[in-house]
């Protein structure tokens, strides 16, 4: 039904679809056929008033825009595995004003990627890709000068590194060489096994967070609730923040990057939490 509506509103000749996330973080581009030049669809007019969620088959939740059900860019019915995720997505659609801005709807994008899997990746491929970031992990890549930056890196990054080495019983270490740290195979195996315990949806989110923060260590610290989203983003951008403190802040570059990184990382972290946790409420009666 949504597709029929799209054909009806065919003023620009675009097909309506919010974007998905491809592995290297590029936006999934849709080319228009009828307009004068190739354009990337980033905005569309808002065509609904109310957003609500409803129970679907198999305990999944669906999003309703007015009376129509939301679909993924791949054409499938949009289903979320739990209520929290559905509400987060519904809220994203609800906050849109006259124009729909797809690039601000991070939770929707992540759900679409998990549902469509447009690049047909398996769990193993995602784990391998995620672990590749460990070899050039931000936290492990140290500078040798200026001394104040070296000190800052040691003070801020060492505690997180020590935490993850204790928590997972691995050896990572930091390095100032251009090749990065030598990660022993045992460490890789431990992490691989740990990542294998997450389901596909959580892995999608986790890989997204790792790609955004450019660090496996920070992503794990975030997912294990050891640090907050703001702290993780700060640690990821430590050198940038250092340079900003020295040379000054440029609002249209630094702030834009900061807020975008924060919103994406927060969306990814929430996505993983909602996909991997399950809760039950056990009611006990008070005995008098």
């Amino acid at each position, binding site marked *: 039904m949504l597709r029929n509506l799209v054909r009806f509103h065919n003023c620009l000749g675009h097909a309506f679809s919010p974007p998905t996330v491809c592995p290297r973080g590029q936006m999934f581009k849709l080319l228009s056929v009828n307009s004068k030049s190739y354009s990337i669809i980033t905005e569309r007019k808002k065509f609904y008033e109310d957003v609500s969620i409803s129970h679907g088959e198999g305990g999944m939740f669906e999003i309703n825009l007015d009376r129509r059900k939301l679909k993924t860019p791949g054409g499938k019915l949009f289903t979320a595995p739990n209520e929290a995720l559905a509400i*987060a997505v519904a809220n994203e659609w609800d906050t849109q004003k006259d124009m729909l801005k797809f690039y601000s709807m991070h939770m929707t994008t992540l759900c679409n990627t998990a549902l469509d899997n447009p690049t047909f990746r398996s769990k193993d491929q995602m784990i391998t890709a995620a672990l590749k970031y460990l070899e050039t992990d931000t936290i492990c890549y140290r500078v040798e000068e200026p001394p104040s930056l070296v000190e800052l890196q040691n003070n801020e990054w060492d505690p997180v590194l020590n935490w993850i080495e204790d928590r997972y019983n691995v050896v990572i270490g930091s390095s100032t060489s251009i090749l990065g740290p030598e990660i022993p195979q045992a460490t890789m195996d431990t992490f691989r096994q740990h990542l294998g315990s997450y389901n596909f949806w959580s892995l999608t989110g986790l890989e997204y967070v790792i790609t955004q923060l450019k660090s496996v260590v920070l992503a794990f610290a975030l997912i294990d609730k050891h640090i907050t989203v703001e702290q993780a983003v700060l640690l990821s951008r430590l050198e940038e923040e250092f340079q900003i403190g020295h040379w000054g802040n440029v609002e249209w570059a630094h702030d834009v990057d900061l807020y975008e990184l924060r*919103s994406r990382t927060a969306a990814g972290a929430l996505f993983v939490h909602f996909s991997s946790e399950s809760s039950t409420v056990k009611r006990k009666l008070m005995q008098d």
Partner: protein
Amino acid sequence: MASLSSPLSIKGPEYKHSLAYNYVLDQFRKKQITGERCCLAQEEALYASHSYLCLLISTRQHMALYDIYHGKGQHDTEEMSGIVGLRLPTQPGGKGWEK
């Protein structure tokens, strides 16, 4: 820093009727009473809501800056030349090779 518009996209006290608000409150109520001494569920709920707050705030701030600074895309030739103060030449008789 660019100033933000009203912090509530839903105006006034109507936010209490929004889905997300009710859900979050509901979750906290469920985890309020517990038999355990150290309640992990409450900490998790607090952490999740803190992360969600971060998501909402940073998305809003990002959009505010985006609206101010982001390029508006390609206009057509007339508009583009108008922006830099030039006009396109007009030839009422046509350029000669048109049929």
